[in-house]
């Protein structure tokens, strides 16, 4: 090669190398830039249901909690691993040895979104409201609190009548949301203009259409807030919600229906984050609810399943949870036999290692049907909804049970009507779920304790009551996990409830947006999100 040609070749190689390096730098810089959030803009979120009253005292809906995330911070919050962490409190509470006194230190220098100072008096006023307001839904969640002291502006002392371990978890939800005293004193309906401490503040609401919140000038950590406003649009039809996301009308979609997940996963303009939730879906068996919920004492109802534990075990053994998940939900949920989800920090010590066969055991089921002594057993399965997916679930269960000799008749029922029938005890089995609570007490006690307010099964077991009440009062986490493990075994053996799976929620997020967080509680957390620059 001549000298000039060699020079040209070297220059060419150099250009290629520099070009490659520049491209690599550009890509790296670009990837970093994609994660950079710019300030400004309005984020629009399509919610699957409409929030009820925007007053934490009486609020009940799951989606309402998503709105509250932006406008009403709590004493405590959850981190991505569902551990309780301080939010308006400065630290986790100091708990006395007898678990009857909780001392909570508060952050200082914080204001409500109307400029009022946040202090211990405001906390006391709010908690007292939760305990005494007529129709307060929060009362049962913090009922063991007997008195509240405020020795100074940044300290609250809660005195309990009885030990209650789920208390801190309750204060990490609506029971821990603190309301502005000025707003409460204004005399108007708090829900029409809610004021708390939050990165955003309430602006307006059009019933059935949207709720708008705007950036708060009084928030204590303003630098983390990027958006000017967030609009929560009420879009109950899942197909419309998905279409709106794909058309760019909304940037975040709440809970995509399972049939739309593959389509959105192929859409290059959106990401589809998922969250294995702390809730569960299962089948409640009516064992003793003859006269209605909490009409004690419960007594065995005259159905095949209620009369025979063998038959209940057969019913469970006939169910192939993996196949149910695959056929009904396209494999998108998480099959399980217990109410505590793997995503919960309580899962490992309470459930891990316990017996759980996700596949059907038809030979065992058939032998147990025979052993029950009941010829031609019949079960009615009430479905808590009339949508196609729920109907499919009923049909799959029906065919699985038919294979072992149990005849199942399916009754699709409108949701509120099904709740009414369940409470009245006019059902045999009921396919329904629970959105889940961080503390295991929230997923268990109400459903299987004799005095549980959600015990539609009418199940009454003195030993289980002793175990569950003990878990509420236990002084250590180890004692609680031991007791819950015993409770799981009792429930699994006697089967007042048969757990099928934990819902995995799928969400749609436009790639133009960054910083939307979703944890195992299933709540969309948009407060520190923003548009990517």
């Amino acid at each position, binding site marked *: 090669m001549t000298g000039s040609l060699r020079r040209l070749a070297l220059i060419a190689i150099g250009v290629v190398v520099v070009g490659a390096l520049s491209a690599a730098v550009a890509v790296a810089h670009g990837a970093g830039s994609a994660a950079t959030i710019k300030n400004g803009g309005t984020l629009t979120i399509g919610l699957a249901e*409409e929030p009820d009253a925007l007053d934490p005292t009486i609020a009940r809906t799951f989606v309402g909690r998503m709105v509250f995330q932006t406008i009403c911070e709590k004493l405590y919050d959850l981190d991505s691993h569902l551990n309780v962490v301080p939010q308006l409190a400065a630290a986790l509470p100091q708990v006395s040895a007898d678990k009857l006194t909780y001392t909570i230190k508060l952050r200082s220098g914080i204001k409500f979104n109307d400029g009022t100072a946040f202090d211990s008096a405001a906390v006391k006023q709010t908690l007292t409201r939760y305990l005494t307001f007529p129709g307060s*839904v929060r009362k049962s969640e913090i009922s063991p609190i007997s008195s509240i002291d405020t020795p100074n502006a940044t300290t609250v002392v809660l005195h309990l009548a009885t030990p209650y371990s789920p208390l801190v978890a309750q204060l990490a939800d609506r029971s821990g949301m603190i309301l502005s005293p000025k707003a409460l004193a204004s005399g108007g309906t708090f829900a029409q203009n809610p004021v708390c401490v939050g990165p955003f503040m309430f602006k307006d609401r059009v*019933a*059935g259409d949207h709720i708008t919140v705007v950036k708060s000038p009084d928030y204590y950590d303003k630098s983390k807030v990027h958006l000017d406003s967030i609009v929560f649009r009420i879009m109950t039809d899942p197909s419309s919600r998905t279409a709106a996301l794909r*058309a760019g*009308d909304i940037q975040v979609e709440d809970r995509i229906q399972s049939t739309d997940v593959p389509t959105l996963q192929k859409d290059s303009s959106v990401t589809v984050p998922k969250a294995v939730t702390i809730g569960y879906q299962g089948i409640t068996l009516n064992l003793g609810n003859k006269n209605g919920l909490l009409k004690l004492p419960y007594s065995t109802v005259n159905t095949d399943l209620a009369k025979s534990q063998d038959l209940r075990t057969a019913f469970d053994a006939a169910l192939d949870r993996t196949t149910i998940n695959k056929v009904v939900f396209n494999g998108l949920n998480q099959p399980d036999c217990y109410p505590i989800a793997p995503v919960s920090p309580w899962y490992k010590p309470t459930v891990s290692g316990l017996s759980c066969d996700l596949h059907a055991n038809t030979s065992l089921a058939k032998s147990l049907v025979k052993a029950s002594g009941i010829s031609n057993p019949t079960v009615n399965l009430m479905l808590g909804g009339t949508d196609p997916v729920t109907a499919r679930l009923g049909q799959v269960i029906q065919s699985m049970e038919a294979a072992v000799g149990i005849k199942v008749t399916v009754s699709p029922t409108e949701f509120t009507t099904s709740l009414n029938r369940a409470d009245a005890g006019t059902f045999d089995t009921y396919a329904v779920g629970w959105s889940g609570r961080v503390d295991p007490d929230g997923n268990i006690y109400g459903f299987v304790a004799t005095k549980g307010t*959600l015990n539609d099964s009418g199940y009454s077991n003195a030993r289980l009551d002793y175990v569950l009440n003990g878990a509420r009062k236990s002084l250590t986490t180890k004692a609680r996990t031991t007791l819950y493990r015993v409770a799981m075994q009792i429930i699994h053996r006697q089967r007042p409830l048969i757990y099928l799976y934990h819902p995995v929620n799928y969400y749609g997020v436009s790639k133009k947006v960054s910083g939307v967080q979703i944890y195992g509680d299933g709540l969309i957390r948009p407060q520190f999100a923003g548009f990517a620059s």
Partner: protein
Amino acid sequence: MGGFLLRKAGAALIVVFLSSVVVFVGVRALPGGPAQALGGENRDPDVVKAINHEYGLDKPLPVQYVKWVSHAIRGDLGLDARQLPVAHTIVTRIPITLELAFLSVLLGSLIGVTAGVIASVRRGRAEDHAATTFALVGLSVPHFWLGLMMIILFAVDLHWLPASGYVSFRQDPLGNLEHMLMPAIVLGTGLSAVLMRQTRSSMLTSLNADYVRTARAKGLPERIVVGKHALRNSLITVTTVIGLQLGALISGAVITEQIFVIPGFGRLTLEAINERDYTLLQGVVLVAAAGYVIVNLLVDVVYSLLNPRIRVTGSGP
């Protein structure tokens, strides 16, 4: 004319009163009360009791009815489950559905009446067959399917129009029309099919009438014969049909509002039923009943204006 109107108005008031009784009793016949719906998955007995007390459901039915009616007469329809004033919610949502209904009627009438006139004038020919086919398709295609197909094509694929939502005309006139165009087409399709058939049938009758033969014999241009003489008489029946369809349109808007996520009155009704929000449901159904009665009253008035015989005899031929 005055006596005719008084008689009609009196009958309307009686119908509204009877509707209020039916509404009141009917909502309470729904399985599952507000306590189950509002309590949701958390049905603490104390909360259920408080909800029943808040709604006055622990009082005797006649007491509940008198309390509700006495407030309703003053325009106070109570607070809904969201703690928002029911009257305000209804007042803000009715105009949206009325706008949707108006645009649907406008589009449906323009298309339906025009197609019907053409079909009648060109009876038995290609235009008549095309119009009849269009009517058949328009009546057969379900609204929800048509709506979803239009959303996929025009919003998701082409990005020409928004997929859903509503913007008020005052806030953004162009945005309002963009949001309402697809819903109005979906809702108006069925109406245009009905009107096409009705117009065609009425026009055929009118075109064969003696006065039309006389008009032609006088040498009037065909467009005057058709447009001024035959069509005007045909519009009497068409107007009646539009009046009847308007009521059905407003209630049929439920599906369209649900698909296109329009915060209208139809969707409000569905929400109230699903949530067992008694206060909202009572208010919504009462207003709907009153609306029907008023529309039919207006149709009677318009009918009497078009046909003077109605004013004199108080009834049709």
